[in-house]
């Protein structure tokens, strides 16, 4: 399978099975419509182009095909490895309570439609034990302290980190902790702790003040921007080059979300992620099909501005434009996607286990509990099967090895079927990948020019 597209003055060709990428001229772009039917190509394009030129292009394409990097062989995976899905990552709902009232929150003010609860140390400890017991040979284990707002239960976070560290050598494991926080409770003490103990810190901020304050509110319905911006700046300064993201959500209220990304960049943030909201279509702020063209243009504009900033020494990372053309994850990872329900699970303050944080509170998606283990083996098998090898909806999609089949929760929210991807999300993902690849091509070329 191949994919070709034109973006920002570049004709780009991707070979999907090998992951090879090429920049091509306009003539090659047209010839590809006919390859490998040479007679038809020369008949139809022979009146428009010189035959020698057509022959050159044809020979180049044939050479790349023979090298196995264009129209390359399908990916054939070992089913045993695909199905070897020990648990390796856990979203630990340390607090089902929140000190903000964000309008788009899928967690219903942090409670996930249940009681407002903080996780006890004992439950957290059982969760860590469960993770170790179910992680098989996996060495790197990940725990994300999530909520609600995890800093509302900070003392338990610290105790659990200490507990995990005290047993990781014994079990030959290495824990990586992350925290996703709204920043409201950040202070000098917990910032220092997070910097020293978290592998990644995700700080929620939607961009411009007006964008943020329309959706991210205090319990008394006031905007939060002025309360958090300086704290986030201080956390990021302390963090330096270590992993972190200033992360926002865009909605129908800010379809011009590229301005929010640029506002964050102008404030000096270097590691930024701004993502589309997940919301039922009846919500006023939900993204709908009619927004697609606008959002596609936003990503394209953002990619151009991203490059402008990179050229002028003000470059920043945008999560969805990060792509490693020369490496990146292997095919097994790309086929299995996010791993929700198999190698990734969420645990609530009462010890219930769900496939991921987005399913928490939906009774049909309780996998089991820390006390009983995974009891819904049928549900676990559903999540095991929902990978690219079995997902018909993704079979013919060129972007499948970049997105991994999309978010299962999005698929369920929109289609009530974890096998049926959320189409608007698919279109946005495709555009992000196109932008990311174009950016890499430009950066690679300009880096080379600058060296010469």
């Amino acid at each position, binding site marked *: 399978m191949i994919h070709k597209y034109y973006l920002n003055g570049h004709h780009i*060709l991707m070979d999907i*099975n*090998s*992951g*090879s990428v*090429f*920049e*091509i*001229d306009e003539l*090659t772009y047209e010839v590809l419509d006919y390859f490998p039917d040479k007679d038809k190509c020369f008949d139809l394009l022979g009146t428009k182009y010189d035959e020698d030129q057509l022959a*050159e292009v044809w020979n*180049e394409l044939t*050479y*790349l095909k023979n090298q196995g*990097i264009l129209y390359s*062989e399908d*990916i*054939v*995976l*070992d089913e045993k*490895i695909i199905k070897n899905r020990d648990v*390796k*990552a856990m*979203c630990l709902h340390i607090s089902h309570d929140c000190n903000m009232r964000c309008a788009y929150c899928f967690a219903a003010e942090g409670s996930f439609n249940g009681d407002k609860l903080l996780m006890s140390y004992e439950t957290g400890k059982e969760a860590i034990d469960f993770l170790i017991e179910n992680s098989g040979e*996996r060495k*790197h284990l*990940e725990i*994300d302290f999530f909520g609600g707002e995890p800093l509302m239960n900070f003392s338990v976070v610290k105790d659990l980190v200490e507990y995990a560290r005290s047993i990781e050598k014994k079990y030959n494991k290495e824990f990586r902790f992350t925290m996703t926080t709204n920043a409201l409770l950040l202070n000098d003490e917990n910032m220092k702790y997070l910097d020293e103990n978290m592998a*990644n810190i995700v700080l929620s901020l939607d961009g411009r003040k007006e964008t943020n304050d329309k959706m991210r509110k205090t319990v008394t319905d006031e905007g939060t921007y002025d309360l958090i911006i300086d704290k986030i700046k201080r956390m990021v300064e302390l963090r330096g080059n270590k992993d972190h*993201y200033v*992360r926002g959500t865009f909605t129908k209220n800010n379809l011009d979300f590229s301005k929010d990304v640029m506002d964050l960049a102008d404030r000096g943030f270097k590691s930024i992620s701004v*993502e*589309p909201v*997940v919301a039922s279509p009846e919500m006023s702020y939900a993204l709908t099909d009619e927004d697609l063209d606008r959002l596609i243009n936003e990503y394209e504009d953002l990619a151009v501005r991203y490059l402008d900033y990179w050229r002028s020494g003000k470059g920043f990372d945008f*999560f*969805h434009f990060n792509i*490693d*053309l020369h*490496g*990146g*994850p*292997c*095919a*097994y*990872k790309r086929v299995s*996607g*996010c791993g929700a329900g198999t*190698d*990734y699970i969420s645990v609530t303050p009462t010890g219930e286990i769900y496939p991921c944080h*987005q399913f928490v509170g939906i009774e049909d998606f309780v996998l089991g509990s820390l006390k009983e283990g995974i009891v819904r083996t049928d549900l676990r098998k559903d999540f095991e099967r929902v990978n690219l090898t079995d997902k018909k909806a993704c079979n013919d999609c060129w972007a499948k*090895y*970049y*997105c*991994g*089949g999309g*978010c299962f929760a*999005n698929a369920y929210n929109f289609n009530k079927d974890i096998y049926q991807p959320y189409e608007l999300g698919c279109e*946005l993902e495709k555009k992000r990948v196109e932008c990311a690849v174009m950016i890499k*091509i430009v950066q*690679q070329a300009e880096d080379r020019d600058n060296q010469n």
Partner: protein
Amino acid sequence: MKHIKIINVGNLNKVDGKGCGECQTSCQSACKTSCTVGNQKCENTEV
């Protein structure tokens, strides 16, 4: 080649020794609402 510039020679379909499962779960990086795996790092140092 005159018409095609190779940007990257990929080997995604060469899978021997791959699939160790040590890489980061995408939702643990930044994306909590939009699954993306193509931008994760490979942790396998033995291949």
